[in-house]
């Protein structure tokens, strides 16, 4: 299980745009595009390297209708997936 006290930082080189219904992020080096839902978009916006995953979860459970347990599981999957693609750093 991912240590939720770790900090997450989005890739500074990624191009990204936020819309009402989510976001699109593009990896410049691989020219790969990812689509994020509203929760994923909010996590991406908060992943500036100054917050731990737990701190981000505090925001998510406040702003969205989701239990902390579900949000934690989703966050772990989300962070791992984007980290594997080089879009997010977990440290």
């Amino acid at each position, binding site marked *: 299980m991912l240590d939720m006290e770790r900090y997450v930082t989005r890739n500074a080189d990624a191009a990204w745009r936020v819309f009402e219904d989510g976001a*699109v992020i593009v990896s410049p080096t691989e020219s790969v595009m990812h689509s994020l839902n509203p929760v994923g978009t909010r996590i991406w916006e908060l992943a500036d390297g100054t917050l731990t995953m737990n701190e981000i979860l505090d925001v998510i459970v406040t702003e969205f209708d989701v239990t902390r347990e579900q949000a934690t599981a989703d966050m772990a999957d989300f962070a791992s997936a984007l980290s594997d693609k080089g879009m997010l750093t977990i440290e």
Partner: protein
Amino acid sequence: MEPMHTIHLEIAEVGLAIHSDNPEFIAQIADRYEGFVRPESAGFSMTVDTERGITTIGEDLPRVTTTGPDTFHFERRDFFMDVDKASRTMAGSCAPNMYSFDSCLRVFFATYLLDLQGIMIHGASAVDTNGTAWLFFGVSGAGKTTTARLSAPRQVLSDELTILRRVGDGYRAYGTPFWGELQKNGDNVNAPLGGVNMLVKDDKAFLESIPARKALQALLPCVLFFAHEPALVNGAVDRIADLVATVPASEMHFLPDNSFWRLFEHA
């Protein structure tokens, strides 16, 4: 020293004075880009050396590199160019054939258009009877060439690559010489862009409006762009995001006939 020969082109309101000491190369350009030849041009001065040992038609992808605040370099096995946007000059070498030169021009425009609030899209485009241009885009096999072919007698701007540029509060679509199968076609015309339409083959013709995020996702894979530097990629994403925020975006469901034009000519 061989005398230099020159030909002037204009593509999407970008003038190109092309200089080469190879008269046959200049003659090939005159023939290939007939609809875009001009008696003179105000824009870039392009000097092309065709004798510098490059003779292979390349299959690899071009590479684009920023070399200074106003300069960039691009290359492939069969061409390279150093571009100076400040002095509007570029110089390099190209294999003496139109496949290589066409690719060279495409890479140049794909990169430089960002400075002109423009972008090049894998999309067919044509002008309706009201003088409005419509873009029809999609991946290979989506029906771009079909929609172009079914648009006659309307002015078809391209069946493969359309240039879009922001002009004032809207966008204009420009005819390009970059047609499929390297056909010699196209005219140097442009028209205000009414909307962008993602092609969907169907058994009925209708338009379905799509939200900006979906439009951006659908358009990005259709952008002709070769750079990987973050600033340039961001520029391309910015341009498409602005496009979908400015003009209507739709899924265009169409049959293999010209009935889809009824969707626009009453718009």
